[in-house]
């Protein structure tokens, strides 16, 4: 198996978050500070996990990197350009999966290239490649409602990949799956990522998942979230959930994590 230890010292920063803060204003003038002055960067082809207690600002942070939300102050730079809007350079995979229910598997996966005007033959070949890659060969004409949860998220991953994004943003993509399907999908994501290297930012509140996948984990605090600690995870891949060092790290990070606010 190809080594996945990439050179983490190389200084090609693909995503840079500079002093990002986010405040939501409530109905009666109340303010809710979610992110507080967060700065970090992600290197090319790095697998970065944003990890923190439930309801901390990790999804908001990811949405800001995606351009779906605007920071109250600070800025995000992806591929040397400041992020101002959502766009095809950032592939997103959602917890709610968010497939277009009226499109088939093929229709969903080719959606990105289609709206960007890629010719039919070319985009369908490409979609086919990624459908095969995520293991859904033969399901091209199925609708999302005919697929199981794990299969739907495979489509979600293929759809993001098929658009040739510069970075991949995954927001608790396996949060709604049962424990065993989740383990399987974690293996699958790892396999796909090794075949098609991308820079990945992965949000989760599951410490096992974080440790299993990450090159680096950024631990966030409760709201207003700041970076509490960073962990470089150099365990060899494929990893083992009950390996001694794995369990040690799991305990250590869990101990350092803030208590959930709810």
């Amino acid at each position: 198996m190809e080594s996945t230890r990439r050179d983490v010292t190389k200084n090609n920063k693909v995503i840079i978050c500079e002093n990002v803060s986010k405040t939501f204003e409530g109905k009666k003038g109340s303010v809710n500070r979610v992110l507080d002055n967060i700065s970090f960067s992600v290197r090319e082809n790095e697998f970065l996990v944003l990890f923190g207690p439930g309801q901390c600002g990790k999804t908001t942070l990811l949405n800001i990197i995606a351009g779906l939300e605007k920071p109250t102050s600070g800025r995000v730079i992806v591929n040397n350009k400041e992020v101002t809007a959502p766009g095809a350079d950032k592939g997103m995979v959602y917890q709610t999966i968010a497939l277009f229910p009226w499109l088939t598997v093929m229709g969903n996966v080719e959606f990105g290239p289609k709206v960007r005007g890629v010719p039919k033959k070319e985009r369908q070949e490409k979609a086919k490649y990624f459908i095969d890659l995520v293991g859904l060969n033969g399901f091209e004409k199925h609708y999302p409602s005919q697929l199981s949860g794990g299969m739907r998220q495979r489509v979600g991953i293929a759809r993001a990949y098929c658009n040739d994004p510069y970075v991949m943003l995954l927001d608790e993509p396996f949060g709604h799956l049962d424990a065993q399907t989740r383990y399987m999908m974690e293996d699958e994501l790892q396999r796909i990522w090794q075949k098609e290297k991308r820079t990945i930012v992965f949000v989760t509140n599951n410490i096992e998942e974080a440790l299993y996948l990450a090159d680096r984990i950024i631990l966030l605090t409760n709201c207003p979230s700041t970076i509490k600690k960073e962990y470089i995870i150099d365990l060899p891949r494929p990893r083992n959930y009950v390996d001694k060092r794995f369990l040690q790290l799991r305990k250590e990070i869990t101990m350092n994590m803030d208590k959930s606010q709810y």
Partner: protein
Amino acid sequence: MTKANRSERKKVIRSAIIVFAAFIAVWQIISTLTPLRDFVPSASSVISAFIRSFYIPIGKHTMPHHVAVSLFRVLVAFGIACFTGVILGVLMGYFRIAEAIIKPIFEFIRPIPPLAWIPMSILWFGIGNTSKFFIIFLGCFTFITVNTYVGTKSVDPVLIGAARMLGANERQVFLRVVLPSTVPYIFAGLHIAITAGWSAVVGAELIRSDDGVGWIVNMGMVTGNTVQVMVGMMAIGIVGFVLATAMAALERRLCKWNQQEGM
């Protein structure tokens, strides 16, 4: 469809037939053996008159002609209502300004029953087919508009975000996300509207005419012919049922993705 589903379906159809037969039987008994018989024409007389109407004309025409004429009126009006209703609904749902302008007017017109429009309709459109189209149009157009409006309003914002992340522009978001996810709502609206439009036919054909199933009922009432009234009602019921079933079948075909089959 699984085996269990199919046998379930058979069961439903069988019980529907039994209930229907029982209804006819009770009707026949009430209309022949109880004191109510003076007010209720018997099932057998209505059914035989209904069958007879296929070859012996009621007024100037036989039943197939009456049904065809009414269907024509309803389908034309329904078509216009689809067109305007969907456009109006989408405008109201998608553009704030359109909502602010149209919604109050719409909410004001909505509670006025189609029948109340008949005098104005005759004044504006005369007594030909146009005023009948207008009445039937009013009977179904509100349902389509309201459903389309609600559907456009309830598009999942995450899906819109997903399309934007994939590079879709404003126009593509509208055409490829907002419209398709509104389709099930539109269909629900069409479903109610076709039935409502079809039942508005009786009102519309109050406006001077000499054919149509609504005319059969109206004429029966004027002449005190209760059998003819019930023959007309029967025709309306049967055709309405067929229309609703056809609409459901069309929806199943066009909205395949919306069937929650699962795996």
